[in-house]
């Protein structure tokens, strides 16, 4: 099992939802109205007057074999709307209750 955390501009929530749906991923946890900024490029998402946009985060724990296709989808979304900003991070799940 792997945990995939997708951090994205809240403007592309629908696209992320669709990606999860297509892969039949049912379980996820979403954090909305989160702030953050990238290390080298892209706009910060701070929900302020200066940087008004915000991020959302989806964490989903999925089978290892689904990870690649999910990352593929994230890449597609990024290609479609690069300026909005989307990142995915993957790490291993050691235990689950």
């Amino acid at each position, binding site marked *: 099992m792997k945990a995939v955390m997708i951090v994205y*501009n*809240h*403007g*592309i*929530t*629908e*696209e992320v939802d669709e990606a999860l749906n297509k892969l039949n991923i049912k379980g996820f946890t979403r954090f909305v109205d989160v702030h953050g900024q990238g290390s080298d490029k892209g706009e910060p998402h701070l929900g302020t*007057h*200066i*940087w*008004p*946009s*915000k991020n959302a985060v989806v964490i989903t724990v999925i089978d290892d074999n689904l990870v690649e296709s999910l990352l593929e989808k994230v890449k597609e979304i990024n290609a*479609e*709307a*690069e*300026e*909005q900003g989307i990142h995915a991070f993957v790490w291993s799940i050691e235990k689950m209750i």
Partner: protein
Amino acid sequence: MTLPEISVKRPVLTIILYLAIIVLGLVSYQRLSIDLLPEIEIPMISVLTSYPGATAQDIEINLSKKIETGLSSVSNLKKITSTSIDNVSAVTLEFEYGSNLDEAANDIRNALELVKRNLPNDADEPIIFKFSTDMMPIVMLGITADESYIGLNKLVEDKIANQLKRLPGVGTVQNLGGPVRQISIDIDPNKLQAFNLTTSGIGNVLAGENLNLPAGSIKMGRIEYNVRTVGEFTSAKEMGKVVVGQQAGRIVYLKDVATVRDTLEENTRDVRLMGGKRGLMLMIQKQSGANTVDVAREVLAKIETIKNELPSDVSVEKIMDSSEYIVDSISNLSETILYAFVFVTIVLLVFLRKWRAAVIVLLTIPVSLIGAFVYLYFSGNTLNIISLSSLAIAIGMVVDDAIVIIENVTRHVERGSRPREAAIFGSTEVGLAVMASTLTIVAVFFPLVFITGLSGILFRQLGFMVTITILISLFAALTIVPMLSSKLLASRKDEKPIKNKALKTIDSSLGKMLDSLDEFYKKVLIWVLGHKGTTIIISVLIFAGSLALIPLVGTEFMPKSDAASLTISMELQSGTRLEETSALVAKVEDIIKRDFPEVIYFSGRAGTSTKGFSSIIIGQSEGSNIASIMIRTSKKDQRERSIFNMADSFREKLSHIPGIKSLTISTSTGAAMMGGAPIAVDVVGQDLDETEGIANQIKEFMYNLKGTRDVKLNVTDPKPELQVALNREKLALNGLNTAMVANAIRNNIYGLTASKYRELGDEYNIFLRYPPNERTSINQIENLPLTTPMGGIIKLKDVGRIVEKYSPSEVRRKNQERVITVVSDIEGRPLGDVTTDIQNYVNKMYIPSSVTIEYGGQIEQQSDSFRDLGLLLLLSIILVYMVMAAQFESFLDPFIVMFSVPFAFTGVIIALLVTGFPINIMSLLGAVMLVGIVVKNAIVLVDYINITRARNIPLYEAIIYSGRNRLRPVLMTTLTTLLGTLPLAMSKGQGSEMWQSLGIATIGGLFFSSVITLVLVPVLYSIFETRIKQKKEID
């Protein structure tokens, strides 16, 4: 959940809300009445008291003075004036506009209770009279007839007046100058003497003969009969056969001593329609609270149907229709709103270059404007010039919020968001900023609600209207705009390139044009940032220069409107007889017919009405030497000369006619009338000779002053009078007393109504008097026969003599002192300039300490309103600063932004100077509004520079980048407002004078301040920010 999110997720709810506002608005609109201005209650109450037999001076001392003193403590009182004429005192109390008049009337009633004890016993009970605009006739009809003239009065009464009275909202219907049938008995004084008869004796005989009397009933057999004596005359001829006396055993019939004629009453008033046609005038007043336009429409529609039932020689024409000007003005104004809508559409299409986005933004216009009708309806207001002008001004501003929203949403879409999400998040992100900028506009318009006085009544509505419209537009921008964006905007993927070749060319060339504009502005910015000193000096020079131009722009209270009607009032030598006056009217009528083809209908009036009581309150004078001609011309856009040119031409032409002592040509209607005469200089002082001398001196100066018209004193000349002075000893010797002689004289000169002649249910007077040719000289009066109780006959000259005298006909007072007012109209020169000249002259004059000079009329109104608006301007500047400081979280940034405000005034001054319009309350209002509108541009610019700098871009680059980036939104919002008000400034139709100066001021101010803002504000920003940075570094 935020508003945009709710509305995007529940589109049906949003649409229903939107439709609900529109439906409610349309229903309200349909029920709204039309009027020229918001309802204005004239804050005046008069106390009328009559004291029969007292002269003007007696009235002043015994009534006016005492009542004034008694009422001077009434609360909220602004001014107390009085007019004392023979027999009548009128004390008028003027209150502040907006005072509660019912309360005031109660106060007056209480105060009068105390005063009454000091009034002369013979004086009648004082009457409290509330003046209202409802007293003005709303429609006047001229009815002429040829063969039917004799019976015209009855015809009009039965067929027209009675039917009109039944219409809802119609108050009274009065006819003026119609023929009144009367049985005239002209008594020959010589025969009367020969037969030893008196007029009153004959009157008694006629009254005694003209009688039907029921005498009970008797029963005969099975039938009961009513018994009745029948003596009433059935024809005028029959009256001639009445026996009036006996002489030497012979019976004397009435026809032996008098001529009996079934004829018309002798006129004390001459009404002439269309140059001498015989007929009458019908004045229709509305009920209090009824709507002028509604009532006039019904009356005129009814007249159309009645016309068919009238004999063919009777014609009915409109002399005056006060609703016509209102309807025309409102429809012209509505037209300008439509044009404004078209212009705004074009601006949006050019700048957005996406029809879907443009349509979404445009949809906020109807909902905001129509929504305002709901407010109008529920607050009981009408559709009037002020409420519609507010909409015309608002039309360019209501799109601003929507533009900002749609811009951010489009940006998200262009970056790859789907429309639905772009709509939600794009709107939410800028929602707060949009609300803050709306607040600045509200900060300017809402304080209008606090203005008092006459201008307060006008501008309160504007304040509410714009505030409400802008708030609705904010709501629409946060709901319907995101919702429609989510549905209508195409995402980046789905967007199709433009296929139509022509459209493509237009699109790309527009794009190039806007790009090169951006580039140009960038170059300008680089230049000015390199030449900060020069830029500031030039700006200061421009501002100072415009201030120096202020004296060249005139001032006035309200624009004069060309309402396609004018009234010529003429006064001849005091005491001139009616026939002479009428002859003069005829001469003027010839001039009208010959030289004024623009005139559609005119009607003349001369002489006195029987109901002259109300005329002293309105300030009109009546007399056999006074005549007026009402003229209705074709509409403003259908003729070459304006009413004012025509008035001048009349003045020039009438100055050649000998006999006219004073001439007034009034062109004012509606709004301008409320301020009273444009110029009124009150000379206040107890000694009438002294004040009159000074008043005449001022009058002389004003007469020769450029720009004044119809200068005159408002006191009428003393009237010539023939007084009969009786010798009491001689009276007593003859067994007579004053009352007996006075009655005899009255019966013969004025006449005696002996009885009524009845025919077909109507009654006509049987009127005895000397024939006209026996009432033409002092000699004839001296020889008037008087019958002594002993039966002898003596002449009037045996017991008294006749003296010719002049008696002052009126005394006016203001704030408990005698006053003579010099009044004048103005033309071709602004009120402010003329006033300054007069004030300079008066200041140099020698004025004794017992006399003071005060300025009334529109001068007073003007200085009151200008002061109010000045305070308002200060208030809105402070409020705008406060709103901005809160928004920027800084005291410095709003200060920089405020630098765009002075240049708005520069623009106003230059625009007014170029177009030749004076400063009046409408253009000042424009200036006040500009404060809110122009700072908006600077806010957008400064805010974006702040944002850019916060994103770690150095000052210089941040300014250039933001300037280039914000040019389009600034231009777009400016152009929508500018082009929205352009139709106001350009309109030429009926009523446009009222809003033209508003439009011109707004356009000038907006244009100038926008240009300056775009150049000066970045420079100031860079200077202030650099200083602060340096200071921080030193610290």
